[in-house]
């Protein structure tokens, strides 16, 4: 075996913490990520956790990235191996030349280590046991002690970590000082007993700027607050539960009447997903802005109501935080696997509007916008997040709100309008030719504007009818409405390669940061690609023209069947041969390495070397 020199890198490496869930490591690990941010160095952390509360393995990965690559990188440079259960796998996953940090209280056989990595042992258990007597304290402070040791090893400024601890335990002086004490306990031990710093180091920089560090689920929930949602009904399901929980906590701070303290919102935890979407539809029918948050299995359960929303034309918003399916699948792993299920949800001919935010900032914007779209289009809007955006802290641009912005409540006929001479109200009458009819809220007028909402076929005046021509007339209007939607939803964003190219790539949602990084890698390999990030369905006309402008286009997505590709082929009548699927679906977030390798290999095959040249 060749001697591997230790990896040496400043502000560009991956640290992975292997823990047992329920051990209280999460807050220490997050503190680690935040403290690097305070050095002005971007980080991209990810939770890799089981569908379990206590005892199973869990990992927390922090990518330190001065260049600002926020996608998962793959590989581990420093493993903080705190879980004996996963030791072998964890040690094996370290990059050659990487580092292994472990609790050296009990001696380990040399067969448990690797020769090509640097092993750093800190007797964490011995230190904690000699300092603390309470078992719970031993457990919790052990996490802070390893954080302290990492401070010394990676050359972090302890003052910045102390400052963060101070913010976290503001007003709880006892907790504050005991945490700071534990931090120094670890740091001092490392400084006295180990060679500090190691090859991986954090140096102060200025690459974070005014960006914020936020989870997508919390951002989407905040978008619902800003977008005027007053009713939220939900049923707990990973990874979406934290949307409703965040909405609750945002509302508690932002949505109580100052005079009376009463709530300007109603949140109901339904008995299941059917009740949740039923409550949303009832509230929206009655003129409130309402939403639910769920994940794949919940979407399956809601499909009957989704069809009602489409056909009876009732606004509603579903936030789908996607996880790996099918069935229960991998509830705590990420995928973009509900594209088809949501685009065509429910029996009969249906089509729905989907929005694909790339990060928390866009989740906030699209969440707020989804209520305008739902009421304007009088239909179901799906906000398609995934676990990777939803449940991980992501560095993103600060959230913005224009105070002049008004809500678009759509076509709602008031009592005054109904009383206008010559006004004809038909609930399903296409007055403006955009396929969108007027609606009235219940209780509007004593004698005008009432109608019977139903999932059965009806005429333009909402009267029950099973006559073929009347049914078809309504179905055609719904298509017209969907065409109207095309120009209302967020448009795709396009970025051209540095040099003219015949090849393009389409991607969406959480793939974004990995894609941006992959473009750089591909360029360095001599591959030029024009990019298009799709942000909504129905597809804007620029999608078809982007494909037409290139010999072929890669479609990068995180599912097995190339669902977005199928949707593009189906909706735009594109020859499938021109769309090359690049698919990642093992439940881990897609990486730049994966994309660059998959596209790079495909591109390399295209470079046909002339036979003569190859022989000579």
């Amino acid at each position, binding site marked *: 075996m060749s001697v591997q020199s230790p990896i040496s890198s400043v502000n560009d490496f991956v640290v992975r913490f292997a823990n047992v869930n329920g051990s209280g490591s999460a807050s220490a690990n997050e503190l680690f990520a935040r403290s690097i941010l305070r050095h002005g160095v971007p980080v991209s952390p990810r939770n890799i956790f089981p569908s379990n509360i206590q005892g199973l393995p869990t990992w927390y990965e922090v990518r330190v990235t001065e260049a600002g690559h926020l996608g998962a990188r793959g590989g581990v440079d420093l493993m903080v191996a705190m879980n004996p259960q996963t030791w072998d796998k964890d040690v094996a996953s370290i990059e050659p030349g990487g580092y292994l940090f472990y609790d050296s209280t009990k001696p380990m056989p040399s067969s448990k280590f690797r020769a090509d990595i640097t092993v750093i042992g800190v007797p964490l258990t011995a230190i904690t046991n000699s300092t603390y007597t309470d078992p719970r304290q031993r457990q919790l402070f052990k996490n802070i002690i390893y954080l302290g040791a990492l401070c010394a090893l990676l050359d972090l400024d302890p003052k910045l970590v102390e400052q963060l601890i101070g913010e976290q335990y503001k007003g709880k002086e006892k907790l504050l000082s005991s945490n700071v004490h534990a931090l120094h306990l670890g740091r001092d031990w490392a400084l006295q007993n180990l060679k500090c710093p190691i090859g991986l180091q954090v140096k102060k920089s200025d690459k974070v700027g005014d960006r914020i560090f936020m989870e997508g689920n919390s951002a989407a929930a905040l978008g619902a607050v800003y977008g005027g949602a007053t009713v939220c*009904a939900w049923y707990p399901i990973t990874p979406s539960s934290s949307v409703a929980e965040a909405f609750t906590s945002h509302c508690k701070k932002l949505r109580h009447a100052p005079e009376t303290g009463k709530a300007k919102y109603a949140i109901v935890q339904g008995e299941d997903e059917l009740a949740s979407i039923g*409550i949303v539809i009832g*509230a929206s029918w009655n003129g409130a802005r309402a939403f639910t948050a769920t994940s794949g299995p919940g979407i399956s359960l809601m499909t009957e109501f989704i069809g009602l929303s489409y056909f009876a034309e009732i606004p509603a918003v579903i936030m789908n935080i996607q996880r790996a399916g099918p069935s229960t699948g991998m509830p705590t792993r990420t995928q973009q696997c509900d594209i088809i299920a949501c685009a065509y949800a429910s029996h009969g001919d249906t089509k729905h509007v989907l929005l694909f935010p790339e990060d928390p900032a866009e989740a906030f914007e699209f969440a707020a916008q989804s209520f305008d779209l739902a009421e304007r289009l009088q239909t179901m809007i799906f906000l398609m997040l995934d676990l990777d955006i939803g449940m991980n802290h992501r560095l993103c641009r600060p959230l913005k709100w224009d105070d002049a912005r008004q809500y678009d409540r759509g076509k709602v006929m008031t009592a005054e309008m109904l009383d206008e001479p010559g006004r004809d109200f038909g609930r399903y009458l296409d007055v403006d030719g955009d396929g969108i009819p007027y609606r009235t809220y219940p*209780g509007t007028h004593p004698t005008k504007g009432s109608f019977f909402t139903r*999932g059965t076929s009806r005429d333009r005046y909402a009267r029950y009818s099973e006559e073929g021509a009347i049914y078809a007339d309504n179905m055609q209007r719904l298509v017209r409405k969907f065409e109207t939607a095309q120009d209302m939803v967020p448009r795709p964003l396009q970025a051209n390669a540095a040099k003219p190219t015949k090849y393009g790539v389409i991607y969406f949602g959480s793939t974004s940061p990995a894609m941006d990084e992959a473009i750089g890698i591909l360029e360095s390999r001599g591959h030029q690609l024009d990019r298009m990030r799709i942000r909504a369905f129905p597809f804007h006309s620029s999608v078809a023209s982007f494909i037409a402008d290139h010999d072929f286009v890669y479609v990068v997505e995180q599912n097995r069947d190339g669902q977005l590709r199928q949707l593009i082929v189906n909706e735009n009548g594109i020859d499938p041969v021109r769309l090359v699927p690049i698919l990642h679906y093992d439940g881990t977030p897609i990486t730049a390495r994966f994309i660059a390798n998959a596209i790079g290999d495909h591109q390399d095959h295209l470079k046909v070397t002339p036979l003569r040249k190859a022989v000579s």
Partner: protein
Amino acid sequence: MTYIAKPKFQHPGLPKNELGYTHRDYEGKVSTLCAGCGHDSITASIIEACYELSIEPHRVAKISGIGCSSKTPDYFLGNSHGFNSVHGRMPSVLTGANLANRDLIYLGVSGDGDSASIGFGQFAHSIRRAVNMTYIVENNGVYGLTKGQFSATADRGSKSKKGVMNTENAIDLVAIALQLGASFVARSFSGDKSQLVPLIAAAIRHKGAAFIDVISPCIAFNNHAGSTKSFDYVREHNDAVNRLDVLTGRDPITVEYAPGTVQVVEQHDGTRLALRKIDADYDANDRLAAMTFLQKHAAKGQVVTGLLYVDPDAEDLHTHLDTVETPLNTLEAKDLCPGSAALEKINASLR
């Protein structure tokens, strides 16, 4: 029949209620149900109750599921918004509608298939959530629209029209509603309008989850010998515990009641319910006793009717959620959006 348009003519001498409305103002489209259907009698009772209470028709929201019973909201209160939703899901749709606007009156109409089978869960949860509503189940023990299959309220041992014996136990929605804390529980019979109309009126005036199970024979598929939901059977086994007078306004009670024969219950909105006792020992404020009474009589094959339980101090979902008095659907951006300054603070806390 629907192909016959309902005449718009009103007799000038029709009596008017306090708001100046006649009965006709509370009617809807012509029923498409079978002639003699019990559900049409319930429709007539709803119209009567709303007329007597002088309710503005458009301030009622009528919500139903799927089935014969769920079609009926089209046949009353033609100036109200109606919502014929999804099978078994009326309770959730009604809950959402109620959250959006607490000022309307919510009338949920459902059937035994809709509420005891496919929608049993939603029935239960809307009750335990204390949604302010009048929840009427038009209970005929049979699936009418699909031609005569047993429903979950069909009694064990009763016979279908085809002669098949039901071997499964029946769900008693009244017993369940009591157990789950409905604050107004009644049972009636579509053939007894004088009992049913005041029950509906009292339920509408009740603040909280009001549930009425109305036995409503299916003339087409469940009105034969051997059925326990037929007109004849219910008439023979009807065991009414009380008769109800609903007294609105502040006027003193003018009707003379013999001492000890009436129980007066005052509801939140000032409505007084005068319960003329038929069973002298029955106390409509005692939930546990009501449950026992019901079980004992059910065991004897009797159908207990009347106002079985009422909690005059009931609370509703809005009280529990502590929502603002203003209907949520009238709040505007200025009430709901925290604005850019608050967002800046949030941004600062996330760095």
